[in-house]
């Protein structure tokens, strides 16, 4: 299998086709021994208010470029065999998947570390903006979280260390 085709990115208004996405990597090709996956889901409340929907804006062109760059960065850090990032844009209802990250490697440790890295960097380095639309009809743009910046920064501090330590989970 050509290596390049096993790394790809999709930004789309369509629902994430989970079964098809997993089928890209499982069953495996006999090389990959571990697959890490993260799926972000829309929560039904935000700041104590019931949420009717999320609206996701992005910067067409730059978004794909930024995500591809994040995937390339992960490949310099871990011996990955495959990687896939899918991000929804447009209007999403509570419960819907908003982002999917998959990383495969010969062994579990790099696959899981890369998965964590990819979602942390995606949250702080890809041009997406979320607006919360509440059940009462009001709406508000989501403010960037300092916590996300800190989680991503930990990876930066580790960039000299291939395969580096996973950052501590925020609570």
């Amino acid at each position: 299998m050509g290596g390049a085709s096993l790394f790809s990115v999709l930004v789309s208004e369509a629902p994430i086709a989970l079964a098809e996405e997993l089928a890209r990597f499982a069953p495996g090709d006999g090389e990959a021994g571990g697959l890490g996956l993260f799926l972000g889901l829309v929560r039904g409340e935000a700041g104590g208010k019931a949420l009717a929907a999320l609206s996701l804006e992005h910067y067409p062109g730059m978004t794909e470029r930024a995500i591809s760059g994040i995937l390339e960065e992960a490949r310099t850090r871990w011996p990955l065999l495959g990687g896939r990032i899918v991000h929804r844009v447009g209007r999403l209802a509570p419960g819907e998947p908003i982002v999917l990250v998959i990383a495969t490697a010969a062994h579990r440790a790099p696959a899981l570390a890369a998965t964590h890295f990819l979602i942390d960097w995606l949250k702080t380095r890809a041009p997406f903006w979320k607006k919360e639309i509440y059940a009462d009809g009001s709406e508000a743009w989501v403010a960037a979280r300092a916590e996300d910046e800190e989680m991503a920064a930990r990876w930066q501090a580790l960039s000299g260390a291939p395969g580096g330590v996973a950052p501590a989970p925020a609570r």
Partner: protein
Amino acid sequence: MSSTSVRLRYFAWLRERLKCESEEIALPPEVQTVGDLIALQRRRGPEFATLFAPTSVIRAAVNQNFATPNTPVGPGDEVAFFPPVTGG
């Protein structure tokens, strides 16, 4: 696009506050960097002055790459301004 202009793009609440997705503006010769362009924007009116204030959290990209105040800007460039990202 005129040979001395830049394409500006705005996203999220910046787009809403300025009521503008995209515009072309003339690039004065003294504007050489993103920092210069931000200073120029600040002089375009009260809403611009607020949004592009030195304390603003606004981020920029030049030709679809993240930029800093020192990033060069030249005729024909696409310069985007937007709030900190909140995807994922």
